[in-house]
Structures are given as C-alpha cells and as structure tokens.
C-alpha cells in the first residue's frame, strides 16, 4: 500500500517548514480534489500537511471597506456571508454555482484556487498527459476536448481551470496573500495561475512550500453591480462550459467602469483586459458589448469539438453585461 504521513500543525510557520522540507509534501485543505486524485493515483504525496486548522478561518472587513478572506474559510460559509452577498454578489453566485452543498461545506477558499484540471486525460494515469507526466504527450488535442481550452493553450496542454471562485475573484481585482519559506508576498489573483506554455505541469506561480493564507478584495467600485453566470450541461453540479464574471458601472448610458473575466476557456481565469479597454466610455449597448468581447475572443484557437465555446462566451458575456446594465 502507498503510505503517506499526515500532519496537522496549528502554527503556519510549522506547516510551511514541514512542506518546504519535503519535496513530496502537499498542503491539504478540504481534500475535495486532492483526495480524489490520490485515489486515482494522479497525486502520490509522501506527506499531507493539513492546513484547515491554521488561523486562516476568518472573514474580516479591511479598513478601506474591502474584505480579507482567510484561506481556510469554507466555500459555503463565504457564499452566504452577509458582506459578500451585499457587496460582491458575483462572488457569492460563483461559489454557489460550484460543486454540491456537501462539497462546498468541505472545500476551502485556498484549496479551491489550487484545484487541478478535470481534463479526462490528466485524471487517467494509464494515458499520456504533459501536465501529469511532462513530455509524455497530450492526447486531448486529437481526442476528447469538448470541455477544454480555447484561449491561452499550447501544443503541450489544453487543460482548463475549473474554479468558479477564481473567475469571480479575477473580476473583483482580488489579491492573494502568500506565506512561504522565504517570507510573505502578495500577488494579483490574475497572476496566480499560469498558462501552460512548455511547462503545463505548473498550474500556478507558487513555489514549493508557499501557502495561500488569505484572499483580499478591494472595496467594490461605487454604484457598480456584479454578477457571475455559468453555462453547463446540467442545471447543477457540473463544471462550466463557459462562465462570466462581470462588474459594471454605467453612467449616463456609457460604460464608466467595467471588469470582465471568463471561466472555462483557459488554464486560468481569463481577465478580459482587451474588452474592458475597448468598452471604456462606450455606450452601454449590446452592440458595443458584443464588439468589445469579440475583440478579446479573437485570440481563441478552438479545436475540432470546442469551437462552440467562442460563440458561447461572447453571447454569455453580452447577456451578463446587458443584465447588469438593465438593458432587458
């Protein structure tokens, strides 16, 4: 039997030291993804360091009217937190659109951001996968890829990230706080995940031993509204074919402020900077939304069976922006 050690430190420094000192160590949050991957033989850690008891379980208001969310906060708790529901509806909606109630009760915010792709080849150790076994190949390009990436993929990997939370956080300008053997640092959430390039085995920019301690949200833009919408093959309990998180502030019929992020299209939450720029000051109409989103999506490189995602993402983004602009 493949054995592993399990530690449950109560002190962050001890947790970091444990993982930093062992290349086969992994942090364990709610375990909703890592434990599955261990059963499949995809992950074979020597040591699990359970970080769910570390003092990262609080949701606190920051001085400026933002929110600091501890990495060990459970998805279900954050989704129903009064300040989240009031100020960041997109975040609450994203969390509630993910997984099932039971999984949301177990999953943590930090763990959610670090979940692995659900690409079927990644999860099947009997087949090649560059993300799981670098250099072994990517059968998804020619194989089953209806769910996989149309943006930012490489010849080595077309995996998608499946976190709904990350998409909302990307649109909400979240910052991720990290602690590691070399001290602490902070990153914009949009810099946490990386595109595959020629190193698809690395999902994020985290260094070994680095731990997400908190996610911080700036105050929501004044008078802006936000929403998250996810399209999937069934009404609940499915990963996104495409999803959109948007923050929109319309003044006098023109776009005053907009932030837009896509899920289900790439290996990371896709912040649509191009579309945002194109929309700045433009009339808040479906036509200008569509034109701007199209600009962003010209970078799409669809494969045989996932081309529908391009049209889907465009129409979904237009629908969400129109809803926020109350065009209906």
């Amino acid at each position, binding site marked *: 039997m493949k054995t592993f050690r399990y530690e449950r430190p109560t002190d962050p420094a001890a947790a970091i030291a444990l993982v930093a000192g062992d290349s086969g160590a992994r942090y364990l949050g709610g375990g909703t993804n890592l434990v599955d991957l261990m059963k499949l033989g995809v992950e074979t850690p020597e040591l699990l360091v359970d970080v769910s008891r570390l003092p990262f379980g609080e949701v606190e208001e920051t001085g400026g009217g933002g929110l600091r969310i501890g990495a060990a906060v459970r998805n279900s708790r954050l989704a129903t937190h009064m300040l989240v529901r009031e100020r960041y509806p997109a975040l609450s909606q994203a969390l509630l659109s993910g997984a099932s109630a039971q999984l949301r009760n177990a999953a943590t915010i930090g763990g959610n951001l670090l979940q692995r792709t659900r690409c*079927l080849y990644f999860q099947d150790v009997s087949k090649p996968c560059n993300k799981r076994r670098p250099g072994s190949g990517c059968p998804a390009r*020619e*194989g089953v890829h209806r769910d996989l990436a149309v943006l930012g993929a490489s010849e080595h990997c077309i995996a998608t990230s499946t976190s709904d939370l990350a998409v909302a956080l990307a649109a909400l300008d979240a910052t991720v706080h990290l602690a590691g053997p070399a001290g602490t640092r902070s990153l914009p959430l949009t810099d946490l995940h990386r595109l595959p390039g020629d190193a698809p085995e690395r999902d994020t920019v985290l260094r070994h031993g680095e731990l997400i301690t908190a996610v911080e949200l700036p105050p929501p833009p004044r008078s802006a509204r936000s929403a998250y919408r996810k*399209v999937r093959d*069934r*009404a609940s309990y*499915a990963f996104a*074919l495409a999803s959109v998180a948007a923050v929109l502030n319309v003044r006098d019929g023109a776009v005053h402020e907009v932030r837009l992020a896509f899920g289900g299209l790439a290996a990371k939450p896709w912040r649509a900077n191009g579309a945002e720029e194109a929309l700045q000051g433009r009339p808040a109409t479906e036509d200008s939304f569509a034109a701007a989103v199209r600009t962003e999506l010209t970078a799409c490189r669809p494969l045989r069976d996932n081309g529908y995602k391009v049209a889907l993402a465009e129409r979904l983004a237009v629908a969400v922006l129109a809803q926020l602009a109350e065009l209906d």
Partner: protein
Amino acid sequence: MTTLESALGASTARLEGRAKVSGTARYAAEYASEGALYAWPVPAGIARGEVTAVHTDAAMADPAVLVVLTHDNAPRLRPVEDRTLALLQSPHVAHRGQYVALAVATSLEAARAAAAAVLVQYKADHHDVVLTEDHPGLYAPEEIDGLWPGTREHGDFGGAYAAAEIRTDAVYTIPPLHNHPMEPHAATAVWDGDALTVYDSNQGSTAVQHTLAQLFGIDAGQVRVVSEHVGGGFGSKGTPRPNVVLAAMAARAVDRPVKLAVPRNHMPAVVGHRAPTIQRIRIGAGSDGRIRALAHEVVTCTSTVGHFVEPAALPSRMMYTAPNSRTSHRVTRLDIPAPSWMRAPGECPGMFALESAIDELADICGLDPVELRIRNDTEVEPDSGLPFSSRHLVECLQEGARRFGWHERDRRPGIRREGRLLIGSGVASSMYPVIIFPSCAAAHADPDGQYRVRVNATDIGTGARTVLAQIAADALAAPLGRVHISIGSSDLPEAPLAGGSSGTASWGWAVHNACAQVRELVERSGGSVPAGGLSASADTTEDIKSGQEYARCAFGAQFAEVQVDTDTGEVRVRRLTGVFAAGRILNPRTARSQFIGAMTMGLSMALMEASTMDPEFGDHAERDFASYHVAACADLPAIEAHWIGEEDPHLNPMGSKGIGEIGIVGTAAAIANAVHHATGVRVRTLPIRPDALLPHFAHFA
C-alpha cells in the same frame, strides 16, 4: 372481503424502506466475513492484442498482498456462453479495460495499490473502435439476440414510399450510454470445500447460481447466491458479471473469503452499455397523415466478445399502422467493451427515432402530433397481425393532453418568447411489451395464522418485495402483516431475473398460484391449520403459455415543456407529464416511483447522457459522475406520472403489465420535439446540449 381490496392496489410503503434509509440493509460488499480479503482488478491498457508478460514483483512486495492472479496462475474456468466471463483465461485482449489481472490483499487500499503496481506488457494490434454509417464490417444478422429476425418486410416499402404524397427521411443518432447504477457490481465470495456462497449484486441470482456452477464445474446445489438488496441495475446486472466470478476465483485461489466491488471508473468497460445507434427512418404518408410506408433501418455495433445487438427497430414493428414496412438491423463487431441490456433495450433508442420522425411527419402534414398518432393507431400488431390484448395508446394521449393543457398549444415553432428564453412543448408515445418468464414459488401457512412465502425474486430498488407480499396477501385473503416474504437467495424456489419489466408478472403469478393453493388447503381443513402447517408450491411453466394468441404491450404518452436559452443554448425541462396504460397498477406508490424514475432517466438521455468512444485508446472517456452526467435534482421539473385503469384478462392473475421500463421509452423524443417546438430547430443527435443549439441562434444575436 376487505383484505382482498386493501392488499393489492394499496400504496404500501416498501417493506425494507426503513432498513435502507437507516443503513441496516446489507448490500453485497457489506457482508462481514471472518478474515475477508479485498480484490482489485487490473484493466487492460490496450484495445486489442496479447498480454506478453505480467510483472507482479512490485505488487507482491507489500506483505499485505496475498496473490496477483493472471491468465498464468488463475483457476481454470469451464467455458460458458457469455465469453466476457472467461476471465484471466487467456492472454488475448479484446477491448481496453478488459481485466488482465487481479490483486488480492488484506485491505482495499493495499489491493488498489497492488493493482496499480502490476506491470503488464502487451503486443498491441491495430484496433477498430468507431461506428460509422458505412463501416466496412457491417452485416445484417438473420436473428438478433436469439429472439427476433434482424430484418422484416411487409408489402412493398419502396413502391409505397415512392408513391406517397408526403415523405420524411432523416437519420437519428444516439451515443453510447452507460447504466451506472448507484451500487457498483460487487460480490463477497466464500468457499467451504466445494460449496460456494456468494453475496452478489445482480438482477437475478438463479442465473448467477447456474453460471457459477458451470464455470467452476460444481453442482448448482453447491452454489448459494444471496442478493437480498440490490442498489439498481438498469439491465447491467441482468447477467452474471466479472465481480462475482473474480471474487469466487480469488477466494478459491487463496482459500479465504474475498470481496470485490467494481471501481466506478472500470464499470463502463466491464458491465455492459447501450451501444450507439445510427437510425434512418423514412415515412411515406397521405396528406391526412396516415402512414402508408415505414422504414426503420438501424446501424449499430457490438463487440468481439459478446454479440448483443441493440434491437432498436423493434418498436416500428408494433407501434403504428404501416401496410408497407421494412425494419432492419446492421451491425459491426468492433474492439469495444461488450454492449448489453440497458433499460428498455431496443424500445428506448428506437422510440427516440420513431417518435421524432412522427413529429416531423405531423409538422409536414400540418397536423397536431397527438391527432396524427391517433389516426395511425391500430388494433392489431402490424408485424405479427395478432390483435392486441389491450391497447389504450389513444386514451393515454388524450388524458395526457388534457392534464398537460396541450390543446391550448399553438403548433407553430419558435414563436413563444419569455425574455431571452424560447418555450415549447412536445409529445411522444411510450410502449413496452409484456414479457413473462416461468417462475416457481412456495407458500406455507403456520398454525398461528402467519404465512411464509418464498420466491427467488430480486428487488433492485423497484419495490418488488413489497408488491409480491401484496399479491400473496391478496391470494391468501390475509392481512399483509401476516405475510412474511423471502426473496433474493438461490435457496428459494427458482425464479427469473428482474429484467424486461417481467419481474412482478412472472414472480407474482407463481406467488399467486402457491398462495391460492394454500388458501384452498386452509379452507379445506376447515379454516384451521394443523401443527405442521400447510404448504404448496407453484411452477408457472405451463400457465404462461396461455394468451399467446394476443400481442401484449403496455402503452403510454409523455408530454414535455422546455425552455431554451437563446444566449447559451441551455435546455431545461419545465414540466414532464406521463400517462400510462399498463394493466392493473398493483401499488401506486412504488409504481409512480418506477414511472418518474424512468422518465428522469429519459430526460437525462435527452439532454446530458453521453459516452465518447476515444478512437486513440478504445475506451469510453467519461468514467465518473463528474463527466458522465445524469440529471441532478435541479434538472428535474414538475414531473408527473398518471395511469388509466386498464383491465386486460389476457395477462396474468393480477392483470398487470410491466412498468419498469416503459417510463424511459419516448421521453427523449418528447423533449426533442419540445425543443423543436420552442426553437424551430430539429435536433436528431442526442444529447441536446448547448453546442447542439448555439449555432442555430446566430440570428438572435
């Protein structure tokens, strides 16, 4: 006789309901057995070829591992008809996922790790796994599944079709589908000398008993199969499966009890599935919608190890008047896992095609699809020419239309908008033949007024145990509380499987006969039961030969209302109403559960279920519930099942027809027809997911 009235036809709650919801009902892998070991199989990593070497050193290095069985060292099995059970008998690999080794260890985790550590080397041959319309291997079998002619012709289809005023011609395709019962196929095997006891999850333990006896070369009397509770099967447990054979092989090899539960992600390869179908339907009709010519031509595939053929053209032999018809099957053998029964094999996929085509015909004729079906109703089964013992399709259509509010419907497609949604409704017919197999049963009256009834029936979650007790109480004219029923063990009188919606009629007939005899014995002894009790047994082999001068079939109608999001292509069903005519309904509570359960499965088939054959590897890519989607609660609309009273004296003493499968027949067509009514888009390939509809909505942008 008030007890007579109250037992049969009452909404009795499941007798084992409390045990199930409180977790005390034991399933096959849950029987505690002193010193039991755990087995974990190793699936083949190629789609066709030979195993050239199996290296077990790494697996055996763990002291928790007792043995790794391979084709070299596994116990030899005698040949049986089902070649998927010739497990670990040869190095030949017929499909990816076929078992090539089995690790046995003292814990589940050790067995799993050992299986992963087994290194198998192969000589791989080129494989051929994808069904195409023009696959060079296609042939027309004379007979399919040992039951039906592959092709039937009546009149002159070609001439009548060419001469018809109105013609339809379309191809409908359904992907491979998997049964995926909640409880995986599992078994615990215990040998005592040459006597074998297995606790096994199956739909019929008599067949498991006889097959194990054959495989191991022992008398059937030495094999005991216990299947007291079974967590679903949907056809995939209708025959003995690798779980029970491997558990018994391993237990024999190590001389200790062994448990084996097929891992969920192995199930798509080793316990059957519904093969994909490509179905072409051509209808020639008058402008009044009356069908003059009907061709239903099925292309499908099977495996090289099992030869099951999805008999999808069958419903077109039974449904509507068609004086000139052709129904045919062509099949090719591929290097794929063996297809097998999945809920309503034949009728379910066949009726998706036929009932979609009928909707298309109604559309062309400008007729209401309910009316068109009524015009094509028939009193005799078109293929056999036999009169139906009872057929209330028209009444189901009319009652369903009334309940659903069908008649307010505007027939024009694509015109009902609610914001960004399009709304539509659709209808389809349902049907499922009456099947009865011979069965035995025994009944015994005790002096204290209690009755014991014994029959090797299987309750796969349907409520069969409860309904059989009701049938017994009714025949005994005794209160239900005094009837004690035993099912689910091969010690009991021999009985057929829970399959083909045949269980209640087959077992119930035998139970009825045995109980009626006991009641007579009690009456003859003046109403008192002597000290030794009174017993009777029944065997219905002769009884079931009656009624063959009729075609016997249950019918129904299903109505669906859908909404389609024009931004995203998402289809959601708002309402689903089914009305069925299935003889006498013996227990409304369990019957409703059967109907709406099957309709839910039909909804899943319409909108989400799909397995993808991976051409490179030769396996079905979706092998868990995260990727093989079935309806979640949020997908389930207001779903209703109703039935109309149907008295049919040509069935069985209870007057019942099978209700297990009819609910899935027609559902997918009703939903696809509703999608057409909502959007004007005819989707002929299942499932109807966003990518199927999105390209058609460009004009809304």
